Each structure stands twice: as C-alpha cells, then as structure tokens.
C-alpha cells in the first residue's frame, strides 16, 4: 500500500502520515530528506523528532539517491545507525553536522529490508537537494521516481510526504520557477503510482484518490 500525503506548510501532514503507520507491526523506517543546516532546520527536526518519539521508527537521513537505499547489491538487512555513510566520496556531512544530532546516515551498503514500513519526508526537500546539488540545475524527476518505485516494491507499507508549493501566485526567477515545475511533475507522477492520495487542510485529511 502506497500513500502520498500532500498539503501546504504546517498543515498537519507529518502527524497524519505517522498515524498511517501507527498500527504497522513490522520494522518501520523514517527517511528524513532535510539537511540539518541552519537554526530553523534544527528547530523543525527537533519538533518532528519529538512527534515521532516512541512511535517505533528508525531514522535514516538520506538527502539524495533514494534508489540506493533499496537497490539490490547491498548488505540486505542491516542497521541504519552508523557513521555518516553517504555514498559520495566527498561527503561533508560529518563536519557540518551539529553535535546534538547523532549521525544516522545509512552506510553505503545499507539496504532497506523487504516487507518493512517506510515514511519518507519529504519530496520537496529531496527534490531541491537533487536539483541543486552540484551548483547547477538538473532535472531529477526520473531519478526520484525510480527511488520511489523501488521503495514501493520492497515495502509492505509506504507513506511519502510532499508539499504544495505552487499556489502563491508569485512569479519567481528561473531556478525557483523550475523547481516549482519539477516538484509539480514529481508530485503528479508519484500520485499516479500511489494507491491513495491525501491532502491535509489545517489538519483535516481530504482523500483525493483511493484505489
């Protein structure tokens, strides 16, 4: 079962998404895509961690390359708790990371186990990380969707949280405009893949698609 949860800022998406996995009895993973840089990011992460506390999630920080978390060729079962093991050789997360955040990046060989429950939050951060990572803009649509498809294949229950960013009516410069376009496309294609799509409106879940 795959669910896409969308909505604007601070609309109760995370809380709702967690509820969807509340009764899931198997191993549960939370894939966090937001890079912990800056004071507000820290606050948001701390708040979300508090929300998740005691709900049985193992947290994996993964800012790009979701496909690599579930692609064949890894160690299979494994623990996500380890040193920062981003696949790229020039990873700088270790030194940039604030001391209060324990490193939970999955090692390169870590693979999510088959039949697990997954909550990924959120597509909007993942999309920005993939798009702007090398100082130039690329189109990560296919790459992101390949990752999501892989998560869907291996998991028993998958919840993906995304964000609505296209409804403020403001014309942005090229990079941001491209980001809005790409995220819109990724969201549409993710919704096609999902069995269920839910939009949160001030905390109220509105079902947009249910198969």
């Amino acid at each position, binding site marked *: 079962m795959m669910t896409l949860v969308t909505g*604007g*800022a601070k*609309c109760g998406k995370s809380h709702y998404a967690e509820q969807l996995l509340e009764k899931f009895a198997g191993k549960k993973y939370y894939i966090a895509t937001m890079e912990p840089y800056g004071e507000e990011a820290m606050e948001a992460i701390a708040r979300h961690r508090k929300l998740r506390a005691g709900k049985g999630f193992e947290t994996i920080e993964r800012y790009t390359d979701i496909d690599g978390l579930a692609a064949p060729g890894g160690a299979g079962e494994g623990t996500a708790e380890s040193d920062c093991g981003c696949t790229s050789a020039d990873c700088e997360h270790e030194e940039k990371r604030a001391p209060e955040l324990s490193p939970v990046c999955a090692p390169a060989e870590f693979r999510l186990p088959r039949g697990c429950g997954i909550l990924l939050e959120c597509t909007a951060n993942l999309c920005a990380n993939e798009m702007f990572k090398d100082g130039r803009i690329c189109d990560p649509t296919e790459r992101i969707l390949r990752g999501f498809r892989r998560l869907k294949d291996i998991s028993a229950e998958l919840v993906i949280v995304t964000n609505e*960013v*296209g409804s403020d009516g403001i014309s942005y410069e090229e990079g941001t405009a491209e980001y809005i376009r790409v995220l819109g496309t990724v969201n549409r294609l993710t919704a096609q893949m999902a069995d269920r799509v839910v939009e949160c409106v*001030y*905390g*109220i879940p509105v079902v947009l698609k249910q198969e």
Partner: protein
Amino acid sequence: MIMITGGAFAGKLEFARAQFGLNEDEIVDGTDCAPEDVFTAKCIVHYERLIRRLMEADGKGDLYGANGADEKTEAASTGGGAPKNKNLCPLTFTDRLLCENPDAVVIMDEIGSGIIPLEKGERLWREQTGRAGCRIAEYADMVIRLCCGVPEVIKGMRESIVVGGRS
C-alpha cells in the same frame, strides 16, 4: 464552531452569509477589528490576518521583529523570531477564542501552499497560521473548504449544508 477555509477569493464569505444567514454587523474582519471583538462576534473573517496583526503588535510593527532583519545580524539572532508577549501569542489567543466563542463561524484563508518565503517573519506567519488553523479545525464541529465558490465539507455532517463538491 464552524470553520470555513480555502484560497483567497474562493467565495468563503459569500457562502457563509448565504448558509448561516449572517448580517453585516455580525461579521468582524481580522484585517482591522479590535482583537477582542472576535471573542463575541458571530462570524470572523480573515482570522489569518488577525494572527499577523498579533505578531506585528508583538514585534512593534514588525512580525516578531524578524522581518527585514538579516538573519546574520545580531538583532535577529538575539531578538527577532519569538513571541514576547503571551497575550499576543497566536496559539494562546486562539485557545481563548475556542473557549470564549465556541459557536463562532471562523473564516480563514489557506496561505501555506507556496514557496518558503525568504523573510523569516513571513515564514513565522505561515507557521503560526498553520498551527492555529489546525487547532481550530480540530475543535470545529464542521470544516468547509471552498474552491471556485464550491463548498466541500471536509469534516462534520455533510447533510446539513448544500454541498457541490465531491460526495
């Protein structure tokens, strides 16, 4: 309590007038009303703007003193960005609204579905509005969302209003 939401100019106020038979003097506007008026009014429109005004009052004209301030400056790191006066805290104020005026019709725009604003104060406003809105929606017996003037009951008894949305 009844909550009515949706984007700007989606027909929320029009709908409220028709559905609940409200007179003009029963409606207060968060844009310019005295904040205390919402505790007795039958209907409040633009509650999101009242939240903004509470934050501005707290920051003496600036949203928590956070807008326009370069985040790297000392002023922003030491002063801006947090509520100072408890009575002006949007969530505390909202709790008082739920407590003192539980039968009100609260109309509130959705403002969170855009790119994260560059100014910290604007980000804080989105955040406070979102949180306050979640609290009102949780408490409300009915939440109605309008799109292109078409109401959809997203919480509560659908049968009690004329619904044009999905059923």
